[in-house]
């Protein structure tokens, strides 16, 4: 291999390593907020919008992010490919075939900027895709040798605007530079050509805005529809990255080969730039939430708990994920107060009007059997996706909810959509076999438990009596231990100890006397002791299941409280510490 290609190869490897192993949640996040559908209809929908082709191709790529290892490879290839295209563009501009590692390293600068920008998880891949398209289009245009190719721009610029949107400005600038260098040498003709191309590109945008794209604001028409998830927002990084794609080929075209040392240093800087800049581009709090969501989605419960032991963002979404993981592994009663906790909201988050916050709550509802709430959360989360994309992940849960509750027409509508996806189609085809067959659903390995656990009669979902609601689920299906764990946890988190004490015997099925209780989880022991001691004022016959260790801890805790001391680290993970601070 030519040594100059070491830098792009290393760049690819570093980007792959980051997104496959360090930040796989980035891939997951992008994948779950879109649903790429194979079919003429979907393509036509995109082609009917200016910049729709860039969006379509980006969505095509992002669907592979379903597997982060594959997604990381594609993303690394896209960024590296962008750099190589910039390098090719510089060769086309300079007409020089002699290039060095320095040129390739500098050609990767736009990729570094895009790599930095993509830390903003609202950046859509349509943006880098439009840059790739612009460079490819420019290189194709370069194949036309005649001076008369300039006239082709009358067709090429509007066409390319329609396909790539914002990319047309990059394309027009590169073409202006190339045409000026080849056919109209000198500053003035060059500037005139650049102005003419720019003005014609702007004219195309304005014409689209006053004809077929009347519903779209000009900021979208100029800067790309779906290039950023939030509507009518265009970060400075988009312009800077695009500008670098125009600037770098011109700059490289002017540079010499550079010495060996310069080549090595530049290569190393470019390769190390993305990991070094990551803390500044990838906000730790948000990415931690994404990570927990990613792990919950894949039901990697132990990994959720391990992750939260290291860093637990102070957000109900994180707590929802942690508590669900603890409950799914049967550890909620024992270990929930090893973590700070944040009240009932940390168990089941309140609804928030965005596409992110309630997703884990929806997963909790799914495992609990509150199917209508699953439908509500995933429907509303989908409806909250600000660029109005559909989500294959959410659609999958919505389809399941309709299927389990026997609303087959609606289930079929969603399943039909998923059948047109790449990675959900196998599931959809299988699910289609269950439509209009309630018996089959009830006996399926996938849905029998949820179908059994779901509420059979009329019940109004309420956040004020959530504990009762969970108990009702447990009463209806005594094997729904998750609901029982949630009911007890709910009482503990709300400090509703009388209700907790009434429900407590349910955790000891088949045992009629307190003396028979065994294997009582730690937090339950602590809560029972706290309830009895605070009720009686201190002198109380504690039940035998309260261990000596718990009794000693409580004594120590009580002493520290009496002396107005902060509880030591050992007592941090007790129910008492939680309830004292909660109150």
């Amino acid at each position, binding site marked *: 291999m030519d040594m100059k290609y070491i830098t792009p190869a290393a760049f690819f490897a570093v980007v792959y390593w980051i997104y496959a192993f360090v930040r796989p949640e980035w891939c997951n996040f992008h994948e779950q907020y879109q649903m790429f559908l194979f079919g003429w209809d979907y393509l036509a929908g995109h*082609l009917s919008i200016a910049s729709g082709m860039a969006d379509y191709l980006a969505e095509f790529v992002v669907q592979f992010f379903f597997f982060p290892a594959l997604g990381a490879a594609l993303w690394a290839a896209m960024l590296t490919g962008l750099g190589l295209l910039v390098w090719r563009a510089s060769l086309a501009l300079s007409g020089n075939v002699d290039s060095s590692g320095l040129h390739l390293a500098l050609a990767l600068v736009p990729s570094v900027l895009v790599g930095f920008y993509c830390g903003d998880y609202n950046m859509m891949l349509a943006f880098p895709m439009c840059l790739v398209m612009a460079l490819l289009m420019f290189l194709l245009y370069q194949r036309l040798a005649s001076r008369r190719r300039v006239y082709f721009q009358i067709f090429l610029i509007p066409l390319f605007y329609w396909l790539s949107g914002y990319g047309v400005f990059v394309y027009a600038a590169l073409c202006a530079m190339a045409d000026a260098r080849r056919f109209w040498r000198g500053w003035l003709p060059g500037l005139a050509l650049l102005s003419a191309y720019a003005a014609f590109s702007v004219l195309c945008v304005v014409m689209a805005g006053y004809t077929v794209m009347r519903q779209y604001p000009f900021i979208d028409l100029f800067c790309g529809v779906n290039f950023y998830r939030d509507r009518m927002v265009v970060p400075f990084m988009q312009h800077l990255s695009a500008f670098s794609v125009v600037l770098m080929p011109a700059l490289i075209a002017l540079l010499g080969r550079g010495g060996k040392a310069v080549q090595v240093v530049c290569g190393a800087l470019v390769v190390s730039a993305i990991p070094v800049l990551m803390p500044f581009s990838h906000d730790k709090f948000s990415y931690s939430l994404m990570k927990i969501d990613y792990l919950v989605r894949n039901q990697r419960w132990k990994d959720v708990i391990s992750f939260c032991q290291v860093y637990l963002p102070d957000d109900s979404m994180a707590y929802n994920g942690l508590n669900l993981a603890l409950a799914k592994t049967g550890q909620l009663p024992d270990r929930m107060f090893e973590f700070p906790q944040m009240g009932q909201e940390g168990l089941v988050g309140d609804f928030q009007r965005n596409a992110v916050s309630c997703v884990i709550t929806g997963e909790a509802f799914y495992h609990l059997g509150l199917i209508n709430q699953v439908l509500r959360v995933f429907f*509303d989360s989908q409806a909250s996706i600000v660029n109005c994309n559909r989500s294959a992940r959410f659609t999958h849960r919505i389809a399941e909810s309709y299927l389990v509750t026997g609303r087959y027409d609606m289930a079929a509508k969603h399943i039909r959509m998923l059948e047109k996806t790449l990675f959900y189609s196998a599931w959809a085809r299988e699910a289609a076999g269950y439509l209009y067959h309630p018996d089959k659903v009830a006996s399926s390995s996938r849905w029998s438990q949820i179908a059994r656990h779901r509420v059979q009669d009329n019940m109004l979902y309420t956040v004020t009596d959530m504990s009762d609601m969970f108990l009702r689920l447990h009463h209806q299906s005594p094997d729904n231990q998750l609901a029982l764990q949630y009911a007890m946890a709910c009482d503990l988190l709300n400090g509703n100890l009388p209700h907790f004490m009434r429900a407590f015997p349910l955790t000891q099925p088949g045992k009629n006397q307190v003396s028979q209780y065994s294997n009582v989880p730690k937090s339950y022991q602590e809560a029972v002791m706290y309830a009895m001691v605070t009720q009686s004022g201190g002198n109380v016959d504690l039940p035998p299941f309260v261990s000596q260790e718990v009794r000693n801890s409580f004594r120590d805790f009580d002493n520290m409280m009496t002396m107005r001391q902060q509880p030591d680290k050992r007592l941090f993970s007790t129910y008492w510490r939680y309830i004292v601070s909660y109150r």
Partner: protein
Amino acid sequence: MKNIKNLILSALPLALLMSCGGPKPGNVAERNMLPPVFPDIDSITIPADIAPINFNVDGATYVYATARGSVSGQIECDGEWADFDIDQWRQLTRDNAGGCISVDVTALDSAGQWSKYQPIHIFVSDDPMPEFGVTYRRIRPGYETFSDIGIYQRDLHSFEELPIITYRSIQTDCMNCHVANRCDANCFQIHVRGNHFGTIFQKDGRRELMNTKHDSTIANCMYAYWHPTGKYVAYSLNLVHQSFWENPTKNIEVYDLASDALVLDVENHELILSPLLKTKDFESYPVFSADGNYIYFCTSKPYVEQNLLDSMRYDLCGVAFDPVAGRIGDHVDTIIAASKMGKSITHPRPSYDGKYLLYSIADYSVFPIHHREAELAIMDLQTGEQRILDEVNSPSAESFHNWNTTSRWIVFSSRRYNNNNNLLYFAHWDGNGHAGKPFMLPQRNPRDYYHKMMHSYNVPDFTLQKVDLDIRAVASEINDNKLIQVGLKK
């Protein structure tokens, strides 16, 4: 946008179709039954000049359809579904107004068997529908959040749908209540909510954006109805809340925590309040009578926490209105005490000829859209006689509705298609207390369209002309919060 998409969509299949002919019927079996078509179009009554009533035949891979007028004319089509030529169809309906169109269907099933069915009959009324089309809001039928939302208009003489204002144009949470004055597209209002909000009024090309929330009112003006003079709009102000059922047949309960009614003087930007419409009870859905001298509205006892939601039942009431002085009357009449019958009345809509009042009736609630038992009912305003409109109702929810300008056609939304998506249906009203069998909003390929459709149609109304709204100017005004603050009428 949709046009471009349709163009792109039709380009390839058309090219393919033109390059090859369809299979020819042979060995045809006569079936003594109606063809299994979607949508159900047998015995419907349609107006002349409406878009083709296309249909799909269940299980058919190829269809031949011949539409024959009882007076004159015959047209044919063939393909994967029955897709009549728009101009030919419209001519056929015009030629047969007051008569009937018989549609012969011959279909090829997947086993290669041709079947000829009994003809479908479509009645063509001689009552014209002079409107350009209908307006409605399209929204995914959900819960609390809406991003993919827009107000659209649909040409009833073709399949063209045009956006009036969509989520793409403005940054807002919600938009609703495109309400025109007696279907007049030159006099309408639209309300948008969210960070950027306001009520847009457009009359004869002049546009104003108002903030209709006043210190002395509980909320922004919401459910609207124009006075025939175009000087006033009656509104209810609703503090809307939702609860969620954990029940397979019912998801959502929408109810008010408080609601009042009032009249807005649009020209003077003044609210006209009355203690009769601002009580501790809930007042909602006020509408003017056809002559503009009376306001119908719905009222219920207030919601009290811990009360059961199914105790919320609305009666139909009325109060006089003096349009000259701009004054609301001094006493309320109870017109239908629905709560005493264990029912709840909402969405009153008087016909523009002043003879009838169409309304929704459900077991309880102010929001019948989520109630499967919700039905349309009608009251003869001259005799006071009321009845459920069995000829248009279905086992699913029928909810919002409106009259056309001649009071001979109604448009209403219904969930009969799948109990989830509200779709539009039209019915003929004969002026003597009877409605014809309703038909679904025609589409070029109905099954494909409605099977893929993820939206619901809300708040449908007829529109005489195409609605012309300068969306860029409106977006700019809304985003700049350039609002006229309403005051109180002294």
